[in-house]
Protein backbone atom coordinates (compact mmCIF):
# COMPACT_ATOMS: atom_id res chain seq x y z
CA UNK A 1 0.00 0.00 0.00
CA UNK A 2 1.48 3.27 -1.06
CA UNK A 3 0.37 6.59 0.38
CA UNK A 4 -3.25 5.49 0.34
CA UNK A 5 -5.93 7.95 1.28
CA UNK A 6 -9.60 7.26 1.56
CA UNK A 7 -12.04 10.08 2.03
CA UNK A 8 -15.68 9.29 2.60
CA UNK A 9 -18.45 11.69 1.77
CA UNK A 10 -18.51 14.73 3.97
CA UNK A 11 -14.73 14.95 4.20
CA UNK A 12 -14.38 12.08 6.61
CA UNK A 13 -10.82 10.84 6.39
CA UNK A 14 -10.95 7.11 7.02
CA UNK A 15 -7.39 6.55 5.90
CA UNK A 16 -4.79 9.22 5.50
CA UNK A 17 -1.50 8.76 3.75
CA UNK A 18 -1.08 5.14 4.72
CA UNK A 19 1.97 3.30 3.40
CA UNK A 20 2.66 -0.24 4.45
CA UNK A 21 4.16 -3.43 3.01
CA UNK A 22 2.94 -6.82 4.06
CA UNK A 23 5.05 -9.69 2.77
CA UNK A 24 3.86 -13.00 1.46
CA UNK A 25 3.27 -15.49 4.22
CA UNK A 26 3.14 -12.90 6.97
CA UNK A 27 0.65 -12.79 9.84
CA UNK A 28 -0.19 -9.23 10.78
CA UNK A 29 -2.54 -7.76 13.36
CA UNK A 30 -4.15 -4.52 12.41
CA UNK A 31 -5.04 -2.88 15.70
CA UNK A 32 -6.64 0.31 16.83
CA UNK A 33 -9.86 1.65 18.30
CA UNK A 34 -13.15 1.68 16.39
CA UNK A 35 -13.09 4.18 13.57
CA UNK A 36 -9.33 4.11 13.24
CA UNK A 37 -9.57 2.86 9.66
CA UNK A 38 -9.06 -0.88 10.07
CA UNK A 39 -12.22 -1.87 8.22
CA UNK A 40 -11.59 0.62 5.44
CA UNK A 41 -8.12 -0.89 5.09
CA UNK A 42 -9.69 -4.29 4.47
CA UNK A 43 -12.44 -3.02 2.19
CA UNK A 44 -9.85 -1.33 0.00
CA UNK A 45 -7.96 -4.60 -0.39
CA UNK A 46 -11.00 -6.45 -1.78
CA UNK A 47 -12.07 -3.45 -3.82
CA UNK A 48 -15.31 -3.03 -1.95
CA UNK A 49 -14.21 0.60 -1.70
CA UNK A 50 -12.01 2.58 -4.03
CA UNK A 51 -9.17 4.68 -2.65
CA UNK A 52 -9.45 8.43 -3.05
CA UNK A 53 -5.72 8.65 -3.59
CA UNK A 54 -2.64 6.47 -3.64
CA UNK A 55 -1.89 3.02 -5.03
CA UNK A 56 -2.60 -0.47 -3.74
CA UNK A 57 -0.54 -3.41 -4.97
CA UNK A 58 -1.38 -7.05 -4.39
CA UNK A 59 1.25 -9.48 -5.61
CA UNK A 60 2.79 -6.69 -7.69
CA UNK A 61 -0.51 -5.91 -9.40
CA UNK A 62 -1.89 -2.42 -9.00
CA UNK A 63 -5.49 -3.10 -8.13
CA UNK A 64 -6.54 0.52 -8.66
CA UNK A 65 -6.34 0.02 -12.39
CA UNK A 66 -7.96 -3.38 -12.33
CA UNK A 67 -10.89 -3.72 -14.70
CA UNK A 68 -14.27 -4.24 -13.14
CA UNK A 69 -14.80 -7.70 -14.54
CA UNK A 70 -11.54 -8.88 -13.02
CA UNK A 71 -12.56 -7.97 -9.49
CA UNK A 72 -14.30 -11.33 -8.82
CA UNK A 73 -11.07 -13.12 -9.73
CA UNK A 74 -9.18 -10.91 -7.30
CA UNK A 75 -11.66 -11.81 -4.58
CA UNK A 76 -11.20 -15.52 -5.23
CA UNK A 77 -7.58 -15.06 -4.23
CA UNK A 78 -8.51 -13.31 -1.00
CA UNK A 79 -10.48 -15.12 1.67
CA UNK A 80 -12.53 -12.90 3.96
CA UNK A 81 -13.82 -13.40 7.47
CA UNK A 82 -16.01 -10.87 9.22
CA UNK A 83 -17.22 -10.10 12.68
CA UNK A 84 -20.81 -10.98 11.71
CA UNK A 85 -19.77 -14.26 9.98
CA UNK A 86 -21.91 -13.52 6.89
CA UNK A 87 -23.24 -17.06 6.70
CA UNK A 88 -26.44 -17.88 4.86
CA UNK A 89 -28.97 -18.91 7.51
CA UNK A 90 -31.02 -21.23 5.29
CA UNK A 91 -28.04 -23.25 4.17
CA UNK A 92 -26.30 -25.94 6.21
CA UNK A 93 -22.69 -25.69 7.29
CA UNK A 94 -21.70 -27.91 4.40
CA UNK A 95 -23.72 -25.86 1.91
CA UNK A 96 -22.35 -22.59 3.18
CA UNK A 97 -18.81 -23.70 2.54
CA UNK A 98 -19.59 -25.51 -0.70
CA UNK A 99 -21.27 -22.33 -1.89
CA UNK A 100 -17.91 -20.60 -2.21
CA UNK A 101 -16.82 -23.37 -4.52
CA UNK A 102 -20.02 -23.46 -6.57
CA UNK A 103 -19.83 -19.74 -7.13
CA UNK A 104 -16.42 -20.07 -8.69
CA UNK A 105 -17.66 -22.83 -10.97
CA UNK A 106 -16.11 -25.84 -9.27
CA UNK A 107 -17.84 -29.19 -9.57
CA UNK A 108 -20.05 -30.80 -6.94
CA UNK A 109 -17.74 -33.75 -6.80
CA UNK A 110 -14.79 -31.56 -5.89
CA UNK A 111 -16.89 -29.88 -3.20
CA UNK A 112 -17.99 -33.23 -1.78
CA UNK A 113 -14.36 -34.14 -1.47
CA UNK A 114 -12.89 -30.92 -0.13
CA UNK A 115 -15.58 -29.36 2.03
CA UNK A 116 -15.63 -32.10 4.71
CA UNK A 117 -11.84 -32.03 4.71
CA UNK A 118 -11.66 -28.31 5.40
CA UNK A 119 -14.46 -28.51 7.97
CA UNK A 120 -12.51 -31.22 9.75
CA UNK A 121 -9.50 -28.91 9.70
CA UNK A 122 -11.49 -26.22 11.52
CA UNK A 123 -12.82 -28.82 13.94
CA UNK A 124 -16.39 -29.04 12.67
CA UNK A 125 -16.21 -32.32 10.81
CA UNK A 126 -19.19 -33.60 12.79
CA UNK A 127 -21.52 -30.66 12.11
CA UNK A 128 -21.84 -30.73 8.34
CA UNK A 129 -25.62 -30.75 8.39
CA UNK A 130 -26.20 -28.20 11.15
CA UNK A 131 -27.59 -24.78 10.37
CA UNK A 132 -25.66 -21.67 11.42
CA UNK A 133 -28.10 -20.68 14.18
CA UNK A 134 -27.61 -24.09 15.82
CA UNK A 135 -23.94 -23.27 16.32
CA UNK A 136 -22.12 -21.10 18.82
CA UNK A 137 -20.43 -17.89 17.71
CA UNK A 138 -17.05 -19.56 17.77
CA UNK A 139 -18.31 -22.44 15.64
CA UNK A 140 -19.99 -20.11 13.17
CA UNK A 141 -16.76 -18.20 12.78
CA UNK A 142 -14.96 -21.46 12.09
CA UNK A 143 -17.44 -22.15 9.33
CA UNK A 144 -16.76 -18.69 7.91
CA UNK A 145 -13.03 -19.37 8.07
CA UNK A 146 -13.54 -22.70 6.33
CA UNK A 147 -15.45 -20.91 3.60
CA UNK A 148 -12.75 -18.29 3.26
CA UNK A 149 -10.09 -20.98 3.05
CA UNK A 150 -11.84 -23.53 0.84
CA UNK A 151 -10.42 -22.10 -2.38
CA UNK A 152 -6.91 -21.96 -0.82
CA UNK A 153 -6.47 -18.22 -1.25
CA UNK A 154 -2.96 -16.77 -0.94
CA UNK A 155 -4.35 -14.02 1.28
CA UNK A 156 -6.87 -14.19 4.12
CA UNK A 157 -8.38 -11.06 5.61
CA UNK A 158 -10.17 -11.16 8.92
CA UNK A 159 -12.10 -8.15 10.20
CA UNK A 160 -12.68 -8.49 13.95
CA UNK A 161 -13.14 -12.26 13.67
CA UNK A 162 -13.34 -12.65 17.43
CA UNK A 163 -15.79 -9.78 17.93
CA UNK A 164 -18.85 -12.00 18.28
CA UNK A 165 -17.08 -14.97 19.75
CA UNK A 166 -17.03 -15.95 23.38
CA UNK A 167 -13.65 -14.81 24.79
CA UNK A 168 -12.80 -18.32 25.92
CA UNK A 169 -13.16 -19.51 22.31
CA UNK A 170 -11.51 -16.52 20.65
CA UNK A 171 -8.08 -18.04 21.09
CA UNK A 172 -9.15 -21.05 19.11
CA UNK A 173 -10.30 -18.89 16.21
CA UNK A 174 -6.98 -17.10 16.03
CA UNK A 175 -5.08 -20.33 16.41
CA UNK A 176 -6.97 -21.56 13.39
CA UNK A 177 -5.89 -18.49 11.45
CA UNK A 178 -2.37 -19.20 12.57
CA UNK A 179 -2.67 -22.74 11.24
CA UNK A 180 -3.82 -21.35 7.91
CA UNK A 181 -0.90 -18.93 7.99
CA UNK A 182 1.42 -21.88 8.51
CA UNK A 183 0.22 -23.34 5.22
CA UNK A 184 1.63 -20.26 3.48
CA UNK A 185 -1.37 -17.98 3.38
CA UNK A 186 -0.81 -14.35 4.24
CA UNK A 187 -3.17 -13.42 7.08
CA UNK A 188 -4.18 -9.89 7.98
CA UNK A 189 -6.43 -9.66 11.00
CA UNK A 190 -8.02 -6.46 12.19
CA UNK A 191 -8.87 -6.52 15.87
CA UNK A 192 -9.09 -4.45 18.98
CA UNK A 193 -8.78 -7.44 21.27
CA UNK A 194 -5.74 -6.55 23.36
CA UNK A 195 -5.36 -9.92 24.98
CA UNK A 196 -5.22 -11.81 21.72
CA UNK A 197 -2.66 -9.49 20.22
CA UNK A 198 -0.50 -9.77 23.30
CA UNK A 199 -0.83 -13.55 23.42
CA UNK A 200 0.07 -14.30 19.84
CA UNK A 201 2.96 -11.90 19.38
CA UNK A 202 2.79 -11.25 15.68
CA UNK A 203 3.55 -8.18 13.63
CA UNK A 204 1.35 -5.35 14.89
CA UNK A 205 0.28 -2.46 12.72
CA UNK A 206 -1.40 0.07 14.99
CA UNK A 207 -3.75 2.64 13.54
CA UNK A 208 -5.38 5.74 14.90
CA UNK A 209 -7.51 8.29 13.07
CA UNK A 210 -6.68 6.78 9.72
CA UNK A 211 -2.91 6.83 10.19
CA UNK A 212 -0.41 4.15 11.06
CA UNK A 213 1.12 5.13 14.36
CA UNK A 214 3.24 2.08 15.02
CA UNK A 215 4.43 -0.99 13.12
CA UNK A 216 6.51 -3.58 14.92
CA UNK A 217 7.30 -7.26 14.65
CA UNK A 218 6.30 -9.55 17.49
CA UNK A 219 4.55 -6.56 19.00
CA UNK A 220 1.96 -5.96 21.65
CA UNK A 221 -1.29 -4.03 21.53
CA UNK A 222 -0.02 -0.81 22.97
CA UNK A 223 0.97 0.93 26.08
Amino acid at each position, binding site marked *: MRRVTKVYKGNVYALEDVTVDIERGEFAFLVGPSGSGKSTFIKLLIKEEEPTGGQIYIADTNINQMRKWKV*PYLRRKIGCVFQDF*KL*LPHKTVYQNVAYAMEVTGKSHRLAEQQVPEVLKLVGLGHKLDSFPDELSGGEQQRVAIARAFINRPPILLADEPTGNVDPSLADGVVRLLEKINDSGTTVIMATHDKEIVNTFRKRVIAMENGRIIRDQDRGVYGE
Partner: protein
Amino acid sequence: MNKVTYFLSETWVSLRKNLILAVAAIAVVAVSLGILGLVVMGWNMFSNMIKNAERKVGEVDVYLNDLATQEEIAAIEAFLVSIPEVDPTKVVFKDKDTALQEFKERFKDQPELWQYIQENPLPNSFEVMTKDPKDVGKVVGEIQNNAPYPERIEDIKSASSAIEKLENIFDKFRQIGIIGVIALAIIAVLLVSVTIQVAIFARRKEIGIMKLVGATNWFIRWPFIMEGVLEGLVGAVVAILAALAVKVWILDKLIENLEFLRLSLSPGLLPVLVPCMLIGGIVIGALGSAYALGRFLEV
Protein backbone atom coordinates in the same frame (compact mmCIF):
# COMPACT_ATOMS: atom_id res chain seq x y z
CA MET B 1 -24.53 -28.95 -16.60
CA ASN B 2 -23.67 -28.31 -13.01
CA LYS B 3 -24.08 -24.57 -13.48
CA VAL B 4 -27.35 -24.89 -15.34
CA THR B 5 -28.95 -26.93 -12.57
CA TYR B 6 -27.66 -24.39 -10.06
CA PHE B 7 -29.23 -21.49 -11.98
CA LEU B 8 -32.50 -23.35 -12.45
CA SER B 9 -32.85 -24.22 -8.79
CA GLU B 10 -32.02 -20.65 -7.74
CA THR B 11 -34.61 -19.36 -10.20
CA TRP B 12 -37.26 -21.70 -8.89
CA VAL B 13 -36.63 -20.85 -5.25
CA SER B 14 -36.79 -17.16 -5.99
CA LEU B 15 -39.99 -17.44 -8.04
CA ARG B 16 -41.69 -19.35 -5.27
CA LYS B 17 -40.78 -16.68 -2.76
CA ASN B 18 -42.61 -13.85 -4.46
CA LEU B 19 -45.33 -15.83 -6.08
CA ILE B 20 -48.04 -13.16 -6.05
CA LEU B 21 -45.92 -10.60 -7.84
CA ALA B 22 -44.71 -13.19 -10.29
CA VAL B 23 -48.30 -14.20 -11.04
CA ALA B 24 -49.23 -10.55 -11.63
CA ALA B 25 -46.30 -10.09 -13.99
CA ILE B 26 -47.14 -13.28 -15.85
CA ALA B 27 -50.77 -12.17 -16.14
CA VAL B 28 -49.86 -8.84 -17.70
CA VAL B 29 -47.45 -10.51 -20.10
CA ALA B 30 -50.25 -12.92 -21.03
CA VAL B 31 -52.80 -10.15 -21.52
CA SER B 32 -50.54 -8.04 -23.70
CA LEU B 33 -49.47 -10.96 -25.87
CA GLY B 34 -53.02 -12.32 -25.92
CA ILE B 35 -54.36 -9.04 -27.26
CA LEU B 36 -51.57 -9.02 -29.80
CA GLY B 37 -52.66 -12.49 -30.91
CA LEU B 38 -56.31 -11.44 -31.16
CA VAL B 39 -55.50 -8.28 -33.09
CA VAL B 40 -53.37 -10.23 -35.53
CA MET B 41 -55.96 -12.98 -35.99
CA GLY B 42 -58.80 -10.48 -36.31
CA TRP B 43 -56.88 -8.46 -38.82
CA ASN B 44 -56.01 -11.54 -40.81
CA MET B 45 -59.65 -12.63 -40.90
CA PHE B 46 -60.80 -9.23 -42.03
CA SER B 47 -58.20 -8.79 -44.73
CA ASN B 48 -59.02 -12.25 -46.06
CA MET B 49 -62.67 -11.24 -46.15
CA ILE B 50 -61.80 -8.14 -48.15
CA LYS B 51 -59.66 -10.09 -50.55
CA ASN B 52 -62.51 -12.53 -51.12
CA ALA B 53 -64.94 -9.68 -51.66
CA GLU B 54 -62.67 -7.91 -54.09
CA ARG B 55 -62.27 -11.07 -56.03
CA LYS B 56 -66.01 -11.28 -56.56
CA VAL B 57 -66.88 -7.74 -57.57
CA GLY B 58 -65.41 -6.38 -60.76
CA GLU B 59 -67.93 -3.64 -61.36
CA VAL B 60 -67.05 0.02 -61.86
CA ASP B 61 -69.74 2.71 -62.22
CA VAL B 62 -68.85 5.94 -63.97
CA TYR B 63 -71.32 8.78 -63.31
CA LEU B 64 -71.52 11.65 -65.80
CA ASN B 65 -72.90 15.09 -65.21
CA ASP B 66 -75.80 16.47 -67.20
CA LEU B 67 -73.67 18.81 -69.30
CA ALA B 68 -72.19 15.92 -71.24
CA THR B 69 -73.19 16.00 -74.90
CA GLN B 70 -73.94 12.98 -77.09
CA GLU B 71 -70.49 13.19 -78.69
CA GLU B 72 -68.75 13.44 -75.37
CA ILE B 73 -70.65 10.44 -74.06
CA ALA B 74 -69.73 8.47 -77.14
CA ALA B 75 -66.07 9.40 -76.76
CA ILE B 76 -66.06 8.30 -73.14
CA GLU B 77 -67.74 5.02 -74.08
CA ALA B 78 -65.11 4.42 -76.76
CA PHE B 79 -62.41 5.10 -74.23
CA LEU B 80 -63.91 2.71 -71.65
CA VAL B 81 -64.17 -0.07 -74.22
CA SER B 82 -60.54 0.51 -75.19
CA ILE B 83 -59.19 -0.11 -71.67
CA PRO B 84 -57.47 -3.51 -71.94
CA GLU B 85 -58.62 -4.73 -68.51
CA VAL B 86 -62.27 -3.98 -69.30
CA ASP B 87 -64.56 -6.56 -70.81
CA PRO B 88 -65.65 -4.63 -73.95
CA THR B 89 -68.95 -6.47 -74.19
CA LYS B 90 -69.91 -5.32 -70.72
CA VAL B 91 -69.78 -1.57 -71.00
CA VAL B 92 -73.39 -0.53 -70.57
CA PHE B 93 -74.68 3.02 -70.86
CA LYS B 94 -77.54 3.75 -68.50
CA ASP B 95 -79.27 7.04 -69.23
CA LYS B 96 -81.10 9.21 -66.69
CA ASP B 97 -84.53 7.86 -67.56
CA THR B 98 -83.50 4.24 -67.24
CA ALA B 99 -81.83 5.02 -63.96
CA LEU B 100 -85.00 6.69 -62.65
CA GLN B 101 -87.07 3.76 -63.84
CA GLU B 102 -84.79 1.36 -61.99
CA PHE B 103 -84.95 3.54 -58.94
CA LYS B 104 -88.76 3.56 -58.97
CA GLU B 105 -88.76 -0.17 -59.46
CA ARG B 106 -86.43 -0.73 -56.54
CA PHE B 107 -88.42 1.47 -54.19
CA LYS B 108 -91.91 0.74 -55.44
CA ASP B 109 -93.03 0.06 -51.89
CA GLN B 110 -91.99 3.52 -50.82
CA PRO B 111 -93.52 5.78 -53.49
CA GLU B 112 -93.01 8.81 -51.29
CA LEU B 113 -89.34 8.61 -52.24
CA TRP B 114 -89.98 9.42 -55.90
CA GLN B 115 -93.60 10.57 -56.19
CA TYR B 116 -92.88 14.24 -55.85
CA ILE B 117 -89.74 14.39 -57.95
CA GLN B 118 -90.23 17.09 -60.60
CA GLU B 119 -86.98 16.79 -62.43
CA ASN B 120 -84.92 13.62 -62.77
CA PRO B 121 -81.98 14.03 -60.33
CA LEU B 122 -80.23 10.84 -61.39
CA PRO B 123 -77.22 11.08 -63.66
CA ASN B 124 -76.29 9.28 -66.86
CA SER B 125 -73.83 6.55 -66.14
CA PHE B 126 -71.77 3.69 -67.50
CA GLU B 127 -71.64 0.31 -65.85
CA VAL B 128 -68.31 -1.26 -66.64
CA MET B 129 -67.23 -4.82 -65.80
CA THR B 130 -63.58 -5.68 -65.62
CA LYS B 131 -62.34 -8.96 -67.06
CA ASP B 132 -60.66 -9.78 -63.79
CA PRO B 133 -62.06 -8.37 -60.53
CA LYS B 134 -58.60 -7.73 -59.14
CA ASP B 135 -58.04 -5.07 -61.84
CA VAL B 136 -60.79 -2.82 -60.47
CA GLY B 137 -58.28 -0.47 -58.92
CA LYS B 138 -56.28 -0.28 -62.14
CA VAL B 139 -59.35 0.50 -64.21
CA VAL B 140 -60.52 3.19 -61.78
CA GLY B 141 -57.08 4.78 -61.94
CA GLU B 142 -57.03 4.60 -65.73
CA ILE B 143 -60.42 6.37 -65.96
CA GLN B 144 -59.38 9.01 -63.45
CA ASN B 145 -56.17 9.82 -65.24
CA ASN B 146 -56.77 9.33 -68.95
CA ALA B 147 -60.49 9.56 -69.73
CA PRO B 148 -61.51 12.21 -72.28
CA TYR B 149 -63.62 15.10 -70.96
CA PRO B 150 -62.75 14.50 -67.31
CA GLU B 151 -64.84 17.57 -66.44
CA ARG B 152 -67.91 15.58 -67.53
CA ILE B 153 -67.18 12.70 -65.17
CA GLU B 154 -68.89 13.37 -61.89
CA ASP B 155 -67.85 10.34 -59.91
CA ILE B 156 -66.39 6.86 -60.21
CA LYS B 157 -67.64 4.20 -57.86
CA SER B 158 -66.46 0.66 -57.43
CA ALA B 159 -67.04 -2.01 -54.88
CA SER B 160 -63.43 -1.60 -53.91
CA SER B 161 -63.93 2.04 -52.94
CA ALA B 162 -66.57 0.93 -50.46
CA ILE B 163 -64.20 -1.75 -49.25
CA GLU B 164 -61.43 0.80 -49.00
CA LYS B 165 -63.51 2.86 -46.63
CA LEU B 166 -64.09 -0.23 -44.53
CA GLU B 167 -60.40 -0.95 -44.71
CA ASN B 168 -59.62 2.50 -43.40
CA ILE B 169 -61.92 1.98 -40.45
CA PHE B 170 -60.33 -1.35 -39.66
CA ASP B 171 -56.89 0.18 -40.08
CA LYS B 172 -57.78 2.56 -37.26
CA PHE B 173 -58.84 -0.37 -35.12
CA ARG B 174 -55.58 -2.11 -35.89
CA GLN B 175 -53.58 0.98 -34.99
CA ILE B 176 -55.41 1.32 -31.69
CA GLY B 177 -54.84 -2.38 -31.08
CA ILE B 178 -51.12 -2.10 -31.77
CA ILE B 179 -50.75 0.97 -29.54
CA GLY B 180 -52.61 -0.91 -26.81
CA VAL B 181 -50.34 -3.92 -27.22
CA ILE B 182 -47.22 -1.74 -27.02
CA ALA B 183 -48.49 0.06 -23.92
CA LEU B 184 -49.34 -3.25 -22.26
CA ALA B 185 -45.98 -4.69 -23.24
CA ILE B 186 -44.23 -1.74 -21.56
CA ILE B 187 -46.31 -2.26 -18.43
CA ALA B 188 -45.45 -5.96 -18.57
CA VAL B 189 -41.73 -5.16 -18.81
CA LEU B 190 -42.00 -2.84 -15.80
CA LEU B 191 -43.93 -5.41 -13.77
CA VAL B 192 -41.41 -8.13 -14.54
CA SER B 193 -38.69 -5.72 -13.51
CA VAL B 194 -40.49 -5.07 -10.21
CA THR B 195 -40.58 -8.78 -9.44
CA ILE B 196 -36.88 -9.02 -10.20
CA GLN B 197 -36.16 -6.00 -8.03
CA VAL B 198 -38.01 -7.65 -5.17
CA ALA B 199 -36.06 -10.85 -5.79
CA ILE B 200 -32.79 -8.90 -5.76
CA PHE B 201 -33.79 -7.16 -2.56
CA ALA B 202 -34.80 -10.40 -0.89
CA ARG B 203 -31.43 -11.88 -1.72
CA ARG B 204 -29.23 -8.83 -1.20
CA LYS B 205 -27.36 -10.48 1.65
CA GLU B 206 -26.69 -13.57 -0.38
CA ILE B 207 -25.59 -11.42 -3.31
CA GLY B 208 -23.14 -9.63 -1.03
CA ILE B 209 -21.70 -12.94 0.07
CA MET B 210 -21.51 -14.20 -3.50
CA LYS B 211 -19.52 -11.12 -4.45
CA LEU B 212 -17.33 -11.62 -1.43
CA VAL B 213 -16.35 -15.15 -2.38
CA GLY B 214 -15.62 -14.07 -5.92
CA ALA B 215 -18.73 -14.83 -7.95
CA THR B 216 -18.57 -13.16 -11.34
CA ASN B 217 -21.21 -10.61 -12.22
CA TRP B 218 -22.81 -12.91 -14.76
CA PHE B 219 -22.92 -15.73 -12.28
CA ILE B 220 -24.95 -13.47 -10.00
CA ARG B 221 -27.11 -12.11 -12.80
CA TRP B 222 -28.12 -15.33 -14.53
CA PRO B 223 -30.71 -16.59 -12.04
CA PHE B 224 -32.44 -13.22 -12.14
CA ILE B 225 -32.45 -13.07 -15.93
CA MET B 226 -33.80 -16.59 -16.06
CA GLU B 227 -36.49 -15.66 -13.60
CA GLY B 228 -37.62 -12.78 -15.81
CA VAL B 229 -37.45 -14.84 -18.97
CA LEU B 230 -39.38 -17.65 -17.32
CA GLU B 231 -42.13 -15.22 -16.30
CA GLY B 232 -42.30 -13.91 -19.86
CA LEU B 233 -42.34 -17.42 -21.26
CA VAL B 234 -45.13 -18.64 -18.98
CA GLY B 235 -47.12 -15.49 -19.84
CA ALA B 236 -46.63 -16.20 -23.53
CA VAL B 237 -47.79 -19.80 -23.15
CA VAL B 238 -50.93 -18.64 -21.33
CA ALA B 239 -51.55 -16.07 -24.08
CA ILE B 240 -51.09 -18.68 -26.80
CA LEU B 241 -53.50 -21.08 -25.11
CA ALA B 242 -56.03 -18.26 -24.75
CA ALA B 243 -55.62 -17.24 -28.38
CA LEU B 244 -56.04 -20.84 -29.54
CA ALA B 245 -59.14 -21.18 -27.37
CA VAL B 246 -60.61 -18.03 -28.89
CA LYS B 247 -59.81 -19.37 -32.34
CA VAL B 248 -61.40 -22.76 -31.79
CA TRP B 249 -64.46 -21.66 -29.83
CA ILE B 250 -65.21 -18.24 -31.30
CA LEU B 251 -63.45 -17.49 -34.58
CA ASP B 252 -64.05 -20.89 -36.14
CA LYS B 253 -67.74 -20.63 -35.16
CA LEU B 254 -67.94 -17.16 -36.70
CA ILE B 255 -66.35 -18.40 -39.90
CA GLU B 256 -68.83 -21.26 -40.03
CA ASN B 257 -71.96 -19.29 -39.21
CA LEU B 258 -71.27 -16.11 -41.16
CA GLU B 259 -70.44 -17.93 -44.34
CA PHE B 260 -71.71 -15.09 -46.53
CA LEU B 261 -68.98 -12.80 -45.19
CA ARG B 262 -66.35 -15.20 -46.48
CA LEU B 263 -64.27 -14.93 -43.30
CA SER B 264 -61.24 -17.13 -43.01
CA LEU B 265 -57.90 -17.46 -41.23
CA SER B 266 -54.85 -17.93 -43.41
CA PRO B 267 -53.53 -21.45 -42.78
CA GLY B 268 -49.98 -20.11 -42.48
CA LEU B 269 -50.86 -17.60 -39.76
CA LEU B 270 -50.72 -19.69 -36.58
CA PRO B 271 -47.35 -21.34 -37.29
CA VAL B 272 -45.91 -17.82 -37.47
CA LEU B 273 -47.99 -16.19 -34.75
CA VAL B 274 -47.30 -18.78 -32.03
CA PRO B 275 -43.47 -18.59 -32.18
CA CYS B 276 -43.70 -14.80 -32.43
CA MET B 277 -45.72 -14.70 -29.22
CA LEU B 278 -43.21 -16.98 -27.49
CA ILE B 279 -40.34 -14.77 -28.59
CA GLY B 280 -42.34 -11.72 -27.50
CA GLY B 281 -42.68 -13.22 -24.03
CA ILE B 282 -38.98 -13.99 -23.81
CA VAL B 283 -38.09 -10.48 -24.95
CA ILE B 284 -40.46 -8.88 -22.41
CA GLY B 285 -39.00 -11.02 -19.62
CA ALA B 286 -35.40 -10.36 -20.61
CA LEU B 287 -35.97 -6.62 -20.92
CA GLY B 288 -37.69 -6.54 -17.53
CA SER B 289 -34.85 -8.32 -15.77
CA ALA B 290 -32.20 -6.36 -17.63
CA TYR B 291 -33.85 -3.14 -16.51
CA ALA B 292 -34.01 -4.27 -12.89
CA LEU B 293 -30.43 -5.57 -12.92
CA GLY B 294 -29.14 -2.37 -14.51
CA ARG B 295 -30.80 -0.26 -11.87
CA PHE B 296 -30.57 -2.32 -8.73
CA LEU B 297 -27.71 -4.75 -8.94
CA GLU B 298 -24.43 -3.01 -8.46
CA VAL B 299 -21.91 -5.63 -9.31
